């Protein structure tokens, strides 16, 4: 989960964020992510998937819907002709995998985008306006938050005629309607704390209009949390869309990873050991989700610097010329300050001795 859980943590996170941006006017501070392996892997994976979404159907060796043999009735294991084998209907699994990425990624990003926009509108307004408006909007957000999303979506899509179930943007929109509430809650908490900051107060006293204050003073400081919330919602979109496709609720003629898993179950893949039917799409979804989660981790660490690796890493300690005595400094021990007798490298900053 991105921001953690619950209002108290929202407040704590809000407080930490405010420590990063002390009473300065909205500095256009760039989102500089710490350069750790997590970020690099996450970003690389995500970019990879983005590329796949665009060129996937083109680089697929075959048409995903094309059936190959009319005699075989079992899914065929991987072979030279079909690198990931075939489905029960004798369609090429690899092609389906490559083509299926597009709808999954598209739906998830549309959902993430719409949900983030909604959460900003509701969350920031609620946090800034206060009073009755805040109460009503908060109640609305809490309502959507509590309502179990997937069962609701199942009911909605269950009633939806199949013709409508193929439009990716529409699906993304409906998913967004169930997923905006979490971001709204977080943004509201953050806006509440930012609202009392001196630079906002002074802007209000001077007479700046509300929407200008929001746009120029508050929103720029919300960017890290917005980014995290966006990623989290995209993650939610991926999982939800895959689940809906798995249940056969979205147009089954539209190839997607969830749809592949649907057919895998129909073919009894897990019972009969046809691992090539469910492992590739499942792994693809899991890896996409992992990349999003890794990026989210990094943003969390950016927002709350305490979450970064504490103490010295071995590498940095060696570079500093520090030798260890009784206690290795790498492992963080609460309540016991480490003691290092260091040999200062030649030409340091001239500490008086």
């Amino acid at each position, binding site marked *: *989960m991105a921001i*953690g*859980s*619950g*209002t*108290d*943590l929202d407040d704590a996170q809000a407080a*930490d964020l405010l420590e990063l941006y002390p009473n300065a006017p909205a500095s256009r501070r760039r989102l500089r992510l710490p350069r750790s392996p*997590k970020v690099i*892997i996450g970003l690389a994976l995500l970019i990879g998937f983005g590329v796949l979404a665009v060129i996937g159907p083109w680089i697929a060796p075959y048409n995903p819907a094309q059936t190959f043999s009319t005699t075989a009735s079992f899914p065929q294991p991987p072979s030279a002709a079909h690198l990931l084998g075939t489905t029960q209907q004798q369609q090429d699994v690899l092609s389906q995998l490559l083509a299926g990425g597009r709808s999954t990624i598209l739906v998830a990003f549309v959902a993430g985008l719409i949900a983030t926009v909604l959460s900003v509108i509701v969350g920031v307004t609620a946090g800034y306006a206060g009073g009755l408006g805040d109460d009503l909007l908060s*109640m609305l957000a*809490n*309502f959507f938050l*509590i*309502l*179990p*999303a*997937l*069962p*609701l979506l*199942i*009911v*909605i899509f*269950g*009633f*939806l*005629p199949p013709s*409508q179930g193929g439009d990716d943007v529409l699906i993304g929109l409906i998913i967004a309607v169930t997923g905006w509430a*979490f971001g709204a809650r977080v943004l509201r908490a953050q806006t509440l704390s930012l609202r009392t900051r001196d630079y906002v107060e002074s802007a209000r006293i001077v007479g700046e209009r509300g929407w200008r204050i929001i746009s120029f003073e508050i929103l720029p400081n919300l960017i890290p949390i917005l980014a995290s919330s966006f990623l989290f919602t995209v993650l939610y979109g991926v*999982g939800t869309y895959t*689940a809906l496709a*798995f*249940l*056969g*609720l979205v147009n089954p003629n539209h190839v997607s990873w969830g749809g592949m*898993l649907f057919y895998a179950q129909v073919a009894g*893949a*897990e*019972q009969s*050991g046809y691992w090539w039917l*469910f492992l590739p799409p*499942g792994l693809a*979804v*899991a*890896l996409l*989700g*992992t990349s*999003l989660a*890794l990026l989210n*981790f990094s943003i969390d660490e950016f927002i*709350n610097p*305490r*979450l970064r690796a*504490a*103490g010295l890493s071995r590498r940095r300690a060696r570079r500093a010329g520090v030798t260890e005595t009784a206690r290795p400094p*790498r*492992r*963080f021990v*609460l*309540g016991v300050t480490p003691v290092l007798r260091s040999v200062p490298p030649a030409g340091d900053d001239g500490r008086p001795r």
Partner: protein
Amino acid sequence: MYVISRRIGFYALTAIAAVTVTFFIPRVMPGNPVSAVLAKMQGTVVTKQTLAALQAEFGSDTREGLVGQYLHYWNDILHGNLGISTSNGMVPVTTVIRGALPWTLGLVGTATVISFILGTLLGILVAWRRGSWLDTLLPATTFFQAAPYFFLAFLAIDLFAIRLGWFPAVGARNTLDFPAFDWTYASDVLDHAILPALTIVVASAAGWIVGMRNVMITTMDEDYVLIAQAKGLPKRRVIWYAARNAILPSISGFSLAIGFVVSGALLTEIVFSYPGLGFILLSAVQEADYALLQGIFLVITMAVLIANLAADFVYVYLDPRTRQEA
């Protein structure tokens, strides 16, 4: 207490809203649900009463106005009448649900509790032993969190049930045996429940682990934890002092996450053909059994609300600051 009564009021409102939503969905969606149901029922005899019932259920019956239908709907609900299940031989929806609910409660309830406890304890451990090898596990947990529940279920079945043959792959019990309160029956149920439960635990624990770890790290920076160390208290005490505070956001998070966990658990049930709500949910979708669909949705929502209320009680008990009269 003021805080709790406010929450109960909110839950009541939510329940009302949920019922209203279920009432409006079939009437708002494009298409005609009645004809869709009838299309699926080809082959069975449809009596006039059935037709009338269906029409009343989905609003095609225009004898009553919208408000009238709404009140009628509420009347039914409060009397425990959730409609007729068309895919299960026209038995009441409540009967179908009553058959499946205990399995879901047993499996999902237990698995969720185990997952929460395990995840929280692991989160505390990872936070306490920061900088150790445990930190490297964290990205692995994100993988399990990102992987869909049903995919993990596939993996579990393929690996543990089929290839290794340790556990059964399907169902909740050996259907040939009659249920009895003896050890063989109980162990059989347990045997069937382990893989689905394991799947749910593995998929959901990651969220608790990371959440608890993050809060613990922030909490351990608090002055009162430093003072606890300065007091020379034993390590276990210090961790307890920190965890006792850090668990509060986790409990709030429990309320938020319970919806997700339930959804994932339902999907897991489907893969395992576990005869719980998830299973009958799928058949309801496939058979266009809308009444059952709505009924399941309402039951799930009520369960989530109750779980939330329970979590709120625990939270207020654990945090004295909330007990102040507003």
